[in-house]
């Protein structure tokens, strides 16, 4: 119901706490962060100001542009990897697994790792890929290699593997939901009309599951883009990502205005992505009844 | 004509933004009456019921229940209870907990022992003894319906509101529940106000029917009044069925008023003094077209266009010379020889002047 004079007291009783909380502790902080991004730094202090110097620096200094581009690349690779692994799994769960109880169990087992500490899941790859880690020692003891290799850990590949591992459930969840909602009779109808399984997939299932692909990809991309643990644990010297840069600006480099500008940039990027994603989703939504 | 009114709406209006769901409406319901609000979806009948129940607040006007102005009172402070369309049973409570709910709320805190007794009594009233510990999900549609009834009447309301109480049941069950509703009304002796879009239900159960259309009351009356003397073509068509035909006035003739329908002159029992010079609409109920008639009966000549078999009855689609609409008749199968009911053959039927419904003035409402 629309809030009017009659319903105002009830509405106010319910909503004043959440409203005050969210404005004061969430919206205002983001607002302040954005405003600090226009400040000036004169070491070691910061002064309120309104200038675009911090943003200009982010876009011109190769030190920053390299990191931003690299983060975009890694996030894109992680998204692609998760989609590549997640789609077949979601399809398998939605269309191949019978009966329903087994399907639920398997689906749960995809979600369960999300509940296990994210830090630990990143860390496990350090013990697997390290120089005296599980993979190397296994290969040595099997006689495949003679001495441990240091090519597994501390590079971008290790980062992509780790991040795919961490975020693939976020891809599977929306994909499974969408695929599971596709009425099985549509597939039967398509096959009844003489279309083979592959073309049925291309012409029926894929278009109907695009919403899930978009939702999963957006989520995975945003999460991978902002990650800062994997670079620290398994990334090498060329593994710095935007989040690490952010950390530095608020730590060692002590340049809050620049850090805020970078954070604002990330905020804008995420907002734009979410907006595009919901637009695409709305445009492509088909009522499946 | 009405006993002491227990529910009165005085100029009650309900608007949602620019849309008026109910135009200023006056309605009085007497103590112990069974009143039905009847009409198609969107006619304002459910809004009216919800205004009485307190789920909607009137935009203007007053709602009075047993002499008290309850217009701005919330539902929990009104002496009425409702049987909801989809029953709205609480899924997390057993049957007896559902029924006891209204006895255990703070405003009506009945002692535990009395609660149990009244729940048992209510279960017996609706014939659900032994179901007390079931959950709603374990019940059939008809049983849920009974629980909803028991839950509403256990509080001994002055007025019971029923929102399409039988619409979720299948046809067979619905007829059984109609009998049940009638019995409950008699046994409880309280006022029932029911909303329905099903005219047979309304005709079978009600003392009075309020026919509604587009947010207004079209006519109020007993089932026979509405059937015999509908005030508008809309009511004639909604209560029962009627062939509605445009006709031209052709002046008085003896005690009758004449109308020209196509090439035929029709005698109606309407008082000549009431006749207007402008056009009129005639209503003829399909079941009032007969194979014989009195000496003043109108004899109408038809060509049979289509015959539909309805068990012991036949429904005929007929064409009449000079009339561009088909006219429907319903006849017992035994009164016609099969040779008389071939498509394309001629058939003469009679209709008494008193069975001709005449509508003058606005045709729409």
């Amino acid at each position, binding site marked *: 119901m629309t809030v009017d004079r009659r319903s105002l007291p009830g509405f106010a009783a319910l909503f004043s706490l959440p409203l005050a909380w969210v404005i004061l502790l969430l919206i205002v902080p983001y607002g302040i962060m954005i405003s600090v991004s226009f400040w000036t730094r004169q070491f070691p202090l910061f002064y309120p100001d309104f200038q675009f110097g911090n943003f200009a620096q982010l876009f011109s200094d190769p030190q920053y542009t390299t990191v931003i581009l690299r983060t975009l690349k890694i996030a894109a690779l992680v998204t692609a990897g998760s989609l590549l*692994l997640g789609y077949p799994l979601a399809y*398998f769960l939605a269309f191949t697994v019978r009966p329903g109880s087994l399907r639920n169990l398997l689906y749960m087992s995809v979600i369960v790792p999300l509940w296990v500490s994210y830090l630990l899941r990143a860390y496990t790859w350090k013990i697997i890929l*390290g120089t005296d880690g*599980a993979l190397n020692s296994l290969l040595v003891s099997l006689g495949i290699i003679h001495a441990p290799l240091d090519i597994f850990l501390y590079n971008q590949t290790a980062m992509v593997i780790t991040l795919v591992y961490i975020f693939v*459930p976020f891809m599977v969840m929306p994909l499974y939901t969408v695929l599971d909602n596709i009425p099985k009779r549509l597939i039967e109808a398509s096959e009844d009309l003489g279309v083979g399984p592959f073309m049925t997939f291309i012409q029926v299932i894929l278009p109907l599951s695009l919403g899930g692909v978009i939702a999963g990809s957006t*989520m995975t991309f945003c999460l991978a883009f902002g990650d800062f643990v994997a670079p620290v644990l398994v990334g090498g010297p060329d593994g710095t990502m935007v989040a690490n840069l952010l950390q530095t600006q608020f730590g060692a480099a002590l340049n809050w205005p620049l850090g805020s500008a970078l954070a604002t940039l990330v905020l804008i990027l995420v907002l734009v992505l979410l907006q595009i994603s919901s637009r695409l989703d709305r445009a492509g939504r088909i009522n499946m009844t | 004509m009405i006993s002491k009114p227990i529910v009165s709406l005085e100029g009650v209006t309900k608007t949602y933004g620019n849309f008026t769901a109910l135009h200023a409406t006056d309605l009085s319901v007497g103590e112990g009456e069974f009143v039905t609000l009847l009409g198609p979806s969107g006619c304002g009948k459910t809004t009216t019921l919800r205004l009485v129940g307190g789920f909607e607040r009137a935009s203007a006007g007053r709602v009075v229940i047993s002499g008290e102005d309850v217009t701005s009172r919330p539902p*929990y402070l009104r002496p009425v209870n409702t049987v909801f369309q989809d029953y709205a049973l609480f899924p997390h409570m057993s049957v007896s907990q559902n029924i006891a709910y209204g006895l255990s*709320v703070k405003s009506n805190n009945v002692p535990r022992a009395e609660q149990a007794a009244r729940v048992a009594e209510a279960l017996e009233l609706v014939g659900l003894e032994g179901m007390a510990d079931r959950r709603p999900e374990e019940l059939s549609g008809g049983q849920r319906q009974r629980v909803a009834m028991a839950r509403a009447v256990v509080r001994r309301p002055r007025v019971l509101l029923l929102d399409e109480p039988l619409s979720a049941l299948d046809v067979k069950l619905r007829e059984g529940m109609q009998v049940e509703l009638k019995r409950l009304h008699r046994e409880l002796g309280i006022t029932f106000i029911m909303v329905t879009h099903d005219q047979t239900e309304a005709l079978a159960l009600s003392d009075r029917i309020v026919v509604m259309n587009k947010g207004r009351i079209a006519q109020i009356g007993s089932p026979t009044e509405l059937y015999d003397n509908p005030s508008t073509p809309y009511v004639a068509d909604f209560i029962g069925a009627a062939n509605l035909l445009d006709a031209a006035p052709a002046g008085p003739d003896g005690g009758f008023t004449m109308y020209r329908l196509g090439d035929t002159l029709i005698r109606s029992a309407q008082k000549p003094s009431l006749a207007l010079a402008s056009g009129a609409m005639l209503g003829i109920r399909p079941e009032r077209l007969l194979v014989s008639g009195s000496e003043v009966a109108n004899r109408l000549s038809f060509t049979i266009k289509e015959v539909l078999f309805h068990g012991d009855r036949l429904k005929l689609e007929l064409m009449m010379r000079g009339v561009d609409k088909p006219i429907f008749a319903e006849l017992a199968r035994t009164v016609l020889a099969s040779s008389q009911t071939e498509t394309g053959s001629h058939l003469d039927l009679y209709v008494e002047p008193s069975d001709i419904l005449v509508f003058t003035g606005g045709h729409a409402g």
Partner: protein
Amino acid sequence: MQSLRWWQKGLVGVSLGVLAFLYLPIAMLILFSFNDSKVTSFPLSGFTLHWYEAFLANEGMLRALWNSLVVAVCATLVSLVVGVTAALALDRYDFPGKRLFQNAILLPLSLPGLVTGIAMLNFYKQIGIPQSLTAVVIGHATALLGVVVSQVMARLAKLNRRQLEASADLGATPVETFRRVTLPSIRSSVIGSALLCFTLSFDEIPVTYFLTGREVTLPIYIYSTLRRGITPEINAVGSLIVAASFILIILSVTLLRDRR
């Protein structure tokens, strides 16, 4: 069972592969937590509980664990109180700025945690909340509001409004209706979001990283230990956390089985 075509076999293979990929590392973690060696390498060198003993003797780590539990419980409670009332208001009323409010609440869930952490750090510094576990609780509760609001709202949307009307019709005041009809109906979503909040808060690094003071939480403690190097003690703690997570999951599945 029908015989599978080549692409179906491939599909099964890939799917089982992905499932193995999801669990192999966790198995590794548990395996090495019992391995009697300072390095995590094959072949295994024998069974030990030494790393678990080391963890239990490590006061700093235990203190961090305690801090994490306190923070997660407090943040969850605050988030529930604010989130459930917000969900009720959002579900029942329409008002200007509703979409904006909802989007704001959901933003921290898709925004990198560091950005939210930075925003809060900036703000807390200026209004004088010192970096402390209190700041972390406020930060987590705020960042996790979206979890509660979205889950509870989804459940409220499925709630049959007629049931609330029926309750009022039967004489229950709005408060009674909330307690006896609404709350039992949304119970599973409240418990579900509480468990999720607890887990996410217990596990949270980026916001905590900026808001915490001298006292640290377990993830921060482990994170700073890891930067210095690997100790198998971490495997032991990790295994315990995995075990606790599984217990939580089983708990939530049992509790959330909707009794309808």
